[in-house]
C-alpha cells in the first residue's frame, strides 16, 4: 500500500513505474543481449567485413524469435525452468554433458564481460590489473548486498546509451545502396574467419544461457497461459530491439572503421564508430556504455549459471542462503568468476579474440540445447496442446543442422589437415 501512496503523490514517478512495469522478460532479455560480447562481436563484424555480414541478421532474427517463443511457452505451460525440464526429461547423463558445456561456455562469456570492463577502462587509461579486480569486487557487492530489481532497472536505463549507435550510423552517411545489396545478394565465403564470424554473431545473439534466463524470467513474472499474446509481443519487441541495435552497430562500424581500414585491436578502436555522433567524446561515451553493460552482465552470468546447474542437480541455490547451506552454488559462482578473471589478467591476453571465440562456443553449444528444447516442446505429456507447429519445428531443426554443419566446417579442417599432409 505504501508504494501506491507514493505514486499517487508523484505523477512523474507514476509514469516511470508504468513504463518499467510493462517491461517483460522478452524486452529485458533483449537488452541484456547487448553485452560486451554483443557490442564487440558486432563491432568487429562491421569493421572487418563492412556490410557483408548484415544478411546474417535476418536468419538470426527469425531463429531468435522462434527460440525465445519456445522458451516463453515452455515456461508458461509447465511453470518450470529449462534446467528443471532438461533434468526431468533427459536424465542425469545428458544433463551432465549439457551443463559441463554450459559452464565452459559461460566461463568464456564471463571472461568476455571482464574483457569489456578491461577494454573500456583502458580508454580512460586505467590498467586492466586495476579495473578488473575492482570490478570483481563491485560485482560481488552487487550480488550479495544489492537488490536485483533495482540493479536491473538501472542497467536498462543506461542501455539507452546504445541508441547512440543509431544516431552515429546515420550521421556517418553509410552507403545505403550497398547495405541493400548486402541483404539482397548475401556473400558467403568458406574461410575459417568468415565462418567463425557468422557463428560468433549467432552465438552472441542467441546465447544458450539466455534461453535459461528467459524462461526463468517468464516464470518469475507468473504470466498465465491466457496472457500468452502479451508474452509473445514482449518476446518479439525484445528480439527486434536486439537485432536493430546489432544492425546499427555493424553499420556504424562499417561506415567509420571499415571504409578507413581501421582494425579493432582494442575496445578503444571500436569507439571510433561513435565519432560521427559524439565527436571527441566518442571514446568516452562508448567506454561508458561498454562498462555498464559489462559489469551488469558480469553480475548476472556467473550467478545464473551457478543457479541453473544447481537446479538441474538438486543442490541448494540462492544468494539468500548461507555459505554452508548452498556450498555448491557459491563454489560454482566463485570459480566461474575467478577463472574468467584469471584468463583476462594473463599478460597480453588478446581480449578481442577471446571475446569472439567465446561467442563461437555459444553457437556450438546452441544446437545441443536447441535439440533438447525441440524434443520437449513437441512432447504432448509436457506441453499438452501447446506443442510446436510445423513452421517452428522446421526452423528449429534446420537451425540445429546448419549450426552443426558450420561448426564442423570450422573445427574439422584444422584437425584433419595435419593428417592430410601425411598422405601427400
Amino acid at each position, binding site marked *: 500500500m505504501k508504494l501506491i501512496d507514493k505514486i499517487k503523490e508523484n505523477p512523474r514517478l507514476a509514469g516511470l513505474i508504468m513504463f518499467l512495469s510493462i517491461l517483460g522478460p522478452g524486452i529485458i532479455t533483449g537488452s541484456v543481449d547487448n553485452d560486451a560480447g554483443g557490442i564487440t562481436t558486432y563491432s568487429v563484424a562491421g569493421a572487418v567485413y563492412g556490410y557483408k555480414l548484415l544478411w546474417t541478421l535476418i536468419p538470426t532474427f527469425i531463429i531468435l524469435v522462434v527460440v525465445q517463443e519456445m522458451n516463453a511457452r515452455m515456461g508458461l505451460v*509447465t511453470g518450470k525452468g529449462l534446467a528443471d525440464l532438461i533434468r526431468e526429461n533427459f*536424465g*542425469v547423463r545428458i544433463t551432465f554433458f549439457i551443463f559441463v558445456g554450459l559452464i565452459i561456455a559461460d566461463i568464456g562469456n564471463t571472461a568476455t564481460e571482464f574483457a569489456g570492463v578491461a577494454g573500456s577502462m583502458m580508454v580512460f587509461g586505467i590498467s586492466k590489473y586495476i579495473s578488473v579486480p575492482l570490478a570483481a569486487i563491485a560485482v560481488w557487492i552487487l550480488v550479495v548486498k544489492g537488490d536485483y530489481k533495482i540493479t536491473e532497472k538501472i542497467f536498462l536505463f543506461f542501455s539507452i546509451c546504445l541508441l547512440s549507435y543509431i544516431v552515429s550510423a546515420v550521421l556517418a552517411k553509410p552507403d545505403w545502396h550497398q547495405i541493400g545489396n548486402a541483404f539482397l545478394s548475401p556473400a558467403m565465403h568458406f574461410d575459417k574467419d568468415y565462418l567463425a564470424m557468422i557463428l560468433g554473431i549467432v552465438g552472441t545473439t542467441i546465447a544458450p544461457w539466455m534461453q535459461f534466463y528467459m524462461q526463468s524470467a517468464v516464470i518469475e513474472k*507468473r504470466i498465465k497461459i491466457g496472457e500468452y499474446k502479451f508474452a509473445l509481443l514482449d518476446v518479439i519487441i525484445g528480439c527486434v530491439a536486439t537485432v536493430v541495435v546489432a544492425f546499427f552497430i555493424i553499420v556504424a562500424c562499417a561506415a567509420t572503421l571499415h571504409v578507413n581500414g581501421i582494425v579493432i585491436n582494442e575496445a578503444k578502436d571500436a569507439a571510433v564508430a561513435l565519432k560521427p555522433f559524439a565527436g571527441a567524446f566518442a571514446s568516452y561515451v562508448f567506454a561508458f556504455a561498454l562498462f555498464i553493460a559489462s559489469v551488469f552482465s558480469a553480475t548476472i552470468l556467473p550467478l545464473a549459471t551457478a543457479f541453473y546447474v544447481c537446479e538441474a542437480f*538438486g543442490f*541448494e541455490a540462492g544468494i*539468500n542462503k*548461507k555459505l554452508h547451506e548452498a556450498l555448491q552454488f557459491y563454489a560454482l559462482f566463485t570459480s566461474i568468476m575467478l577463472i574468467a578473471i584469471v584468463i583476462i589478467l594473463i599478460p597480453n591476453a588478446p581480449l578481442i579474440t577471446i571475446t569472439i571465440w567465446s561467442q563461437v562456443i555459444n553457437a556450438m553449444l546452441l544446437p545441443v540445447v536447441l535439440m533438447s528444447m525441440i524434443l520437449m516442446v513437441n512432447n504432448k505429456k509436457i506441453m499438452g496442446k501447446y506443442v510446436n507447429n510445423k513452421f517452428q519445428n522446421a526452423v528449429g531443426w534446420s537451425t540445429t543442422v546448419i549450426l552443426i554443419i558450420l561448426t564442423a566446417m570450422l573445427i574439422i579442417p584444422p584437425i584433419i589437415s595435419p593428417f592430410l599432409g601425411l598422405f601427400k
Partner: protein
Amino acid sequence: MVFFSELKGRLVYDSNKKTLGSLNDLVFVDGEKYAEITHIVYIDENKYRKKIPFSLVNELKEEKIANSHSLVLNLNQPKEKIIPFFIKEDDVLVGDILDKQVVDIDGIKVVRVNDVLLGKVDRNFCVVAVAVGTHSLLRRLGLEKVTKISPKSVREHIIPWESVERLEPKLHDLHLKIQKNKIADLHPEDIADVMEDLSFNERVLIFNTLNKQQAIRTLIGAEPDVQNSVFKNIKVDRVVNLLEDIPADQAADILSMMSPAKVKDILLKMRLESSSKVKSILNYPEESAGAIMDTSFISVPDFYTAQETIDLLRKIAPSSEKIYHIYVVDNQNHLQGVLSIRGLLTALPETKVSDIMKKEVIHVKTSTPQEDIAKAIAKYDLFVLPVVNDENILRGIVTADNILTEIMPKDWRRHKYMPHKIKKKRRNGIQQTPKA
C-alpha cells in the same frame, strides 16, 4: 537392498535361462504402509515395453557375464507360460519419480531424486527410500569410485519413503484417502517454506490439498511470490469461501496482499457482515494497532460472576495467549477492566467480575503505531494488549507474538529456522513414543 540404477538395464531370464529382455522399470502401488512393487517392466526383443507381475521373479542374482559381475533377474516360469501386458495409463512407475522433485517432509524442503532404494519389507519388495545429493548423483553417472577418494562429506543422503511427498499425482492417486497426505502433517508455516521451492503449478497442487485452517495459515505465512501464485490460480469463489469463515483480521491480512480490483470483487461477493468487519480493518492505517490486531478475543459483560466467566472459558477453550487476560466490557462494549486468570480462580464463585477486575487497563488505540505498541509491551512486561477505538470501545487485542512478527527486520524472516524436533518414527506400522 538395491538401488534402482543398479537394476536398470539388467537382463531378465526365464526359468530355462532364456533371455526375456532387459529390465527397464518397476510398477509400484503407494499404499498406507508400503510402496510395494507389483510388476517389473522390461524391453523385449521387439523393443516393446512389457510388464509382468513381480510374483514371477524368483531371485536377483549376481552373475559373471563376460569378464564382469552383473546383476540378473531370474524368473520362476518358462517363457512360454508368461503372458506379458502393456503398461496402463495409471500405472505408477519408479522411473516416474527418478529425476523429479519431491518434498522431503522431515527436512521441510524440496529435493531432487537421483536414485531410488528398493528392498524387502515384511516379505514384500518395496520402494524403501529415495536417494538425493552428490553421492547418488555420482553413482548415476557411473562415477561412484570418485566418492571413495573424497572425504566423509560426500555421504549417501537417503530419505525414507514415508517422509517423501510426491508432487505429480497420477490419475489413480485421486483415491487420496487411502494414501496418506503427508504434507498436511507439517506446520502451515513449514508448508509455506516448502511451497517457495516449487513451481507455481506444484504450489497450487499442494494448496488444494489443504483444509481451510491450514490454507489460511499457510497463505499468511508465505512469501509474497508464493501468495501471488496461489491467488492467480484459485477462483474468486474459493477465496470468498475461505475468507468468510476466518477471523476478520486474518481475512484482512490476506486481502491486503491482493490487487485493489480483486479485493473489491471479493468484498462484494462476501456476506455483508463478514465484509463490513473486514473493510473496517482494512481502513486502519498501516502498521497501526488496528491493522495488526486480532479481532477474536474474549470479553465478558460487567455483570458476570467469576463462576460464569470460568464456565464461559471452559466452553470456548481459548488459546494460551488469550486465556490469561479477560477483558470486561459494558453493554456497549466499552472497556471497563481486565481480569487475570489468577484473580478469577482465587475469587469466590459468586463475586461479580466488576469487583475482581483491575480498572486501570493498559491499552492502545487502533491508531497507535506499532513501535509504540512494542514499547508498551516491553515496558509493562505484558504479552497481550487490548485495543480500543476513540470511544473506548474494545476492538481487538495485540499479542507480543503479533508485534514481534511486525517489527522484526524483513530479512530475518527469510532465513528458515529449523528447530530441533522430536520426531515420531513409524516402523512397520508400530508407533514408537517420542524420546523424552
